[in-house]
């Protein structure tokens, strides 16, 4: 397979093209603009639709229209843009329209800055806008993984008829790494639900309004059932040097790359550290953490936020082991020595 040196944003765009994306709607924002730019260049020539919307609000609603009409469709943005897309995300979830959203997170709140951050974790994993509803959230740590997860994202979106978010941080979009792409696969797609206007069979409806509370409760229970199924079938994570670990570092995305170096350095100093890296942030790898809690003396969660995923780790661990947090904010990336220091401290505290 040919390997190419690509920027993360471009690798995601190319992966989406190979996954058969038919339409892209978006609005420029740093640090993800290479993605719409790539689409603008490549998509029309490959038989798809590129449109720069007048806002993120419009973009996500175009996604809703195209997705509802049965197209493989995506958008991409960064933090303030996702805030504007929350309205549409809620409708997409409610009407069960599949689509892929890329969020290359930048420092916030507000306009913040364009430096890489992980501070949109809550926004991504807790709820897709108002009402009870979830996104499936995938968190790549390398550019190769970003490409692979993009292809997976389209399949998951259609399997669950739910929006899927690729949550990366700004650096993942900007840095370059070698990447290779699998050959395109022709997929059987079930469009029996889509408003294709084909005029055959009963009329179809893409909708999220249920005035009767009992009916809406049923609909919500149906959504919950989907998420429960995803929790059983789609949980993904990576365990690194965890076999004999006595201390687990938990991190995702870019922070996990830093944590991995820190684990290696700690090991060199004789500390039995390991890394647990969630790849799906929703559904969260609860069982992996619960199991690790039987083995390790403590967890250290490293994030580029004020501490968001740490809540999921605590919920998973359920008090079986102490969970410590180390985070940098505002677009600052933690360094391996900083994390090693945290590991050393924690190891000293929990040593038998």
């Amino acid at each position, binding site marked *: 397979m040919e390997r190419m040196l690509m920027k993360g944003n471009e690798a995601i765009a190319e992966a989406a093209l190979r996954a058969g994306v038919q339409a892209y709607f978006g609005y420029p924002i740093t640090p993800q603009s290479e993605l719409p730019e790539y689409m603008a260049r490549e998509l029309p020539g490959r038989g798809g639709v590129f449109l720069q919307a007048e806002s993120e*609000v419009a973009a996500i609603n175009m996604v*809703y229209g195209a997705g509802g009409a049965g197209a493989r469709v995506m958008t991409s943005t960064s933090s303030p843009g996702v805030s504007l897309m929350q309205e549409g995300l809620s409708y997409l979830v409610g009407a069960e329209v599949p689509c892929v959203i890329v969020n290359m997170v930048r420092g916030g709140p507000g306009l913040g800055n364009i430096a890489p951050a992980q501070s949109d974790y809550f926004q991504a994993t807790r709820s897709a806008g108002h009402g009870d509803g979830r996104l499936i959230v995938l968190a790549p740590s390398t550019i190769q993984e970003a490409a692979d997860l993009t292809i997976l994202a389209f399949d998951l979106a259609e399997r669950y008829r739910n929006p899927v978010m690729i949550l990366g941080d700004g650096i993942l979009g900007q840095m370059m790494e070698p990447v290779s792409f699998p050959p395109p696969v022709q997929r059987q797609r079930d469009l029996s639900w889509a408003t294709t206007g084909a005029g055959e069979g009963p009329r179809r409806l893409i*909708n999220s309004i249920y005035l009767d509370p009992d009916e809406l409760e049923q609909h919500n229970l149906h959504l919950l059932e989907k998420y429960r199924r995803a929790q059983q079938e789609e949980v993904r994570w990576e365990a690194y040097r965890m076999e004999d670990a006595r201390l687990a570092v938990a991190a995702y995305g870019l922070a996990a790359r830093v944590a991995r170096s820190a684990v290696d350095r700690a090991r060199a100093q004789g500390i039995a550290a390991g890394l647990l890296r969630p790849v799906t942030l929703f559904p969260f790898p609860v069982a992996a953490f619960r199991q690790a809690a039987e083995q390790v003396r403590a967890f250290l969660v490293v994030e580029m936020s004020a501490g968001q995923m740490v809540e999921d780790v605590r919920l998973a661990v359920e008090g079986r082991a102490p969970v410590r947090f180390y985070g940098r904010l505002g677009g600052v990336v933690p360094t391996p020595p900083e994390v090693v220091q945290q590991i050393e401290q924690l190891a000293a505290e929990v040593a038998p």
Partner: protein
Amino acid sequence: MKQVTARPKVLLDVPMHYCPGCTHGVAHRLVAEAIDELGIRGRTIGVASVGCSVFMYNYFDLDFQQAAHGRAPAVATGIKRVLPDRIVFTYQGDGDLAAIGTAEIVHAANRGENITVIFINNAVYGMTGGQMAPTTLLGMRTTTTPFGRDARQAGYPIRVVELLNTLRGPAYLARVALAGPGNIHRAKKAIRRAFQTQVEGKGFSLVEVLSTCPVTWGLPPVEAVRWLEEHMLPEFPLGEFRTPEPREAVLMPLGGGKEG
């Protein structure tokens, strides 16, 4: 006896939820007749918006997408771009189109999206109980302009067709009124022409339909029609403002005023 009219095929035989005397029902019928007459029933997708017409998909034998408040033009854009051979239309109130959805309609029109927009201007928010709309007339009392709309505080009624007519994107722009048989007949022609514009691939079409909301206006249906004629027609002149050929803006009066 000779049958002069029948239920349009695309309109389902179910009771509508609109208040008695509300002109949403008339507008639905005109849309349905246009679809039937153009023979596009088998390839049309509707986009319902937020407002009293939110459930309109229950009345049409068509695929429909329900859009968020104001976003119907963006949703229609998404559908039309991936299914360019389908006929895609939105049906939006004045709150939906001219307040929360101003950006979406302006940009869809400016792109010349090959979609059709049916814009119901009843000068109020009907569904939420009669609050001020962007099209509420000066001096008009609504639940949020209890002393009458005052331009210094709440600005002026927005003339959507004139606003969109400043853009180069639209192909067909018209304003009609559901007041009396003559006007309704002209409304029907305009709506049909708007769909025809899309069928011929000529680009964005919009028909503003002056309508009544007897319930929140606090008037019996017949008086509401009279009120529309007396108060709305001077503010919102009728006519075809833009037709596909020639491209120049031409004001060809469709004829307004009272029916004799």
